[in-house]
């Protein structure tokens, strides 16, 4: 059985790598993208189980991507974790995202949250 797919959209390469490895450890198959426009193009044909989304992105802001995901019925089972250093912007998206983390976040935190979200998705009545 193949691993669930996770799309990481993050412009900082080091952080992108950290999240990629954390999600691999959480048994996801990560795809890492650095800009918002490319992410939106990929989302037109990909159906990731999880999206890890930064907000301040080149070419297209993260909030636009989140709204695009939420308005696409094809992606209605896609979970989104917003991870940003912009506290006020991130807080404004709390209702639309499945989880919001404010940077700094660590490798373990991302790994554990991704694992927990997979459990929540599998057992919605327990969450």
């Amino acid at each position, binding site marked *: 059985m193949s691993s669930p797919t996770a799309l990481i959209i993050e412009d900082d390469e080091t952080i992108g790598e950290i999240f990629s490895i954390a999600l691999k450890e959480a048994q996801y198959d990560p795809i890492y993208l650095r800009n918002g426009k490319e992410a939106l193009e990929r989302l037109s044909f990909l159906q990731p189980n999880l999206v890890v989304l930064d907000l301040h992105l080149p070419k297209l802001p993260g909030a636009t991507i989140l709204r695009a995901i939420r308005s696409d019925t094809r992606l209605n089972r896609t979970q989104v974790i917003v991870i940003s250093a912009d*506290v006020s912007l991130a807080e404004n998206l709390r209702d639309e995202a499945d989880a919001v983390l404010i940077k700094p*976040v660590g*490798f373990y935190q991302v790994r554990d949250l991704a694992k927990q979200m997979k459990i929540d998705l599998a057992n919605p009545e327990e969450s």
Partner: protein
Amino acid sequence: MNWQSVLVILFLFLIAEAATVLAVKRICQRETSEKKQKPEQAKPFAIQRRKYLNRAVFLRDTKSERLAEEAISLAQAKTEFLAKVSHELRTPLTSILGVSEMLDYGVYGPLSREQKDAIKIITDCTQHMARLVTDLLEQSQLERGNFKLELVDFVLEDVIVRLRRYTAPIARAKGLALQFEVSPEVPPILHGDAQRVYQILHNLVENAIKYTPSGQVKVRIFVKDSTHCAIQVSDTGIGIPKEMQSVIFDPFLQLNHGGNGNGKRNGKEKSNGNGSKAGHDHPSNGFGLGLSIVKQLVSLMNGEIQLTSDEGKGSVFTVILPILIASEQAA
């Protein structure tokens, strides 16, 4: 307005006052000296002095107002600067923390005991700094006079789910039981600032987990009266000494008490990303803002907070908030 802003304004008032006094004093000295040298010019100069005094009073008033405005503006600029600095620090801190934890986890190969210890210091310090940045930002946001609560109907269960999601892994990593109990009489929909209610719960639970070496942390939510709900966070942790309980919510307070050398109840010190036990003591244990922020938020919501604690046995924090919807209660 916080005490620092008040101090700044007082300081500026004092400067304005001192400048006026000096100016008047100089005029008086000039008058005396003129009187000695040219007695015939004494009268015109007295008129001039009165005019000057009136002007000085006027100038003092307008200057004070202007200085007060400047002080407020400076305080706002400070808050904005702090928010900007906090924001800019978060990205590099994420890299430091993430890479350190990956090293610790063995992503780049196995480490010796000494290397792991060294990495632990880096992750602990980074977490510590991250907490400082977060607390400072929250405090600065609270210090802004225009802080507004967003009162909406919210689903309590959503708050609990979110809280469980973020705190359960930390409690699990420490081997603690984390329990949630919502009394059946609590209506599913409450009314208040959901994000701030969550923040209160989060800070209290995080604090309880941090100072509980073994046993359990329990969250209870129950109806207090027709308009108030009680949120109670209890733990089997190290407790708070009696003499410290009256000051535990003060901002910028750090408490020390003996035992395991880890007794800073409201300091936001070491803790690594997966919440495992702290490994190294730091000379500083944060700004002591976690519980202070809770108290400020509770106060903004017109609620109250109570604490009972036995040293060595644990603590119980009870927050009472007016978040029940009247119509729900009538039912």
